[in-house]
């Protein structure tokens, strides 16, 4: 049982998984988003290799209207 904070909210997972797995599960893989893991911004090609471990912080962002 691992805990990962995503966008400021804590989630629990049965087991460790990759960022790609998570995004696929949430059906976000083809969305225009960006991801940072523990403060480091990931490149798309890093999604598959980056694993979510207990205590990790992940940010998933998108562009929105702004000035």
């Amino acid at each position, binding site marked *: 049982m691992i805990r990962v904070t995503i966008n400021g909210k804590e989630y629990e997972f049965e087991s460790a998984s990759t960022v790609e797995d998570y995004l696929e599960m949430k059906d976000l893989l083809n969305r225009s988003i960006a991801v940072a893991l523990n403060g480091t911004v990931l490149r798309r090609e890093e999604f598959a290799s980056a694993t979510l471990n207990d205590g990790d912080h992940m940010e998933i*962002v998108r562009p929105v209207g702004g000035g």
Partner: protein
Amino acid sequence: MADELVIAGKTFKSRLMTGTGKHRSVEDLFAAVEASGTEIITVAIRRLNLDDPNEKTVLDHLDWDRYQILPNTAGCRTPEEALFTARLAREVTGSNWVKVEVIPDPQYLLPDPIGTLDACRQLIDDGFIVLPYIHADPVLAKRLEDIGCATVMPLGSPIGSGQGVQTAEEIQIIIEQVSVPVIVDAGLGVPSDASLVMEMGADAVLVNSAIALSNNPGLMGEAFKLGVEAGRKSHLAGRIPRKLAAAASSPTDGVPVAGSRS
């Protein structure tokens, strides 16, 4: 030859950059962007709502290929936050342009000169095209040009205040002293505000609230487009000097005289 705006080697016909925030509807945003003729639009970077990840934003409807996307670092209070946001922005937008905002003060949203210079230096090292939002401080503007910023973006008045141009004297000095494009950002409320700085020699303006929150964003977007063009053409045509006394616009001699006098 055409009168074009060049930023970091890219050429633009429009000198009106627009923000995409605060619109009441997608229709409003479309109408405003269309009517304004803008070629550069700013966007913000925010957390995806994981409870409703498919929720659409106004941006999902825009044809991104038609515009130069300029992500901002709005909401960042420190250089570190600005760097983090800029890198996320680069990944998601594919654009390495960034409008740098380092703003510790929530009430007037005035930028931090020291934090902004610091953030710009790091972002330039990291390969970004950097357009910093700054107070109308000529010395700071010169320093930002010296470290390689693509433009400087001095404020007219506080963001969204609609107060217009409270910093005309400083902006005039910035225009004199820096050679990168000077883009007046923040506070513009009406087209005459935009014309005013363009007449002074500013290279472009960035407008968001004044268009988005107008009763008619499409019409106001067109109004700003015309105002920016008016100001630019006026600058190129060369204004008459200000004089204290009057100067008749009709000939002063040859005025007809009724019979009794001659």
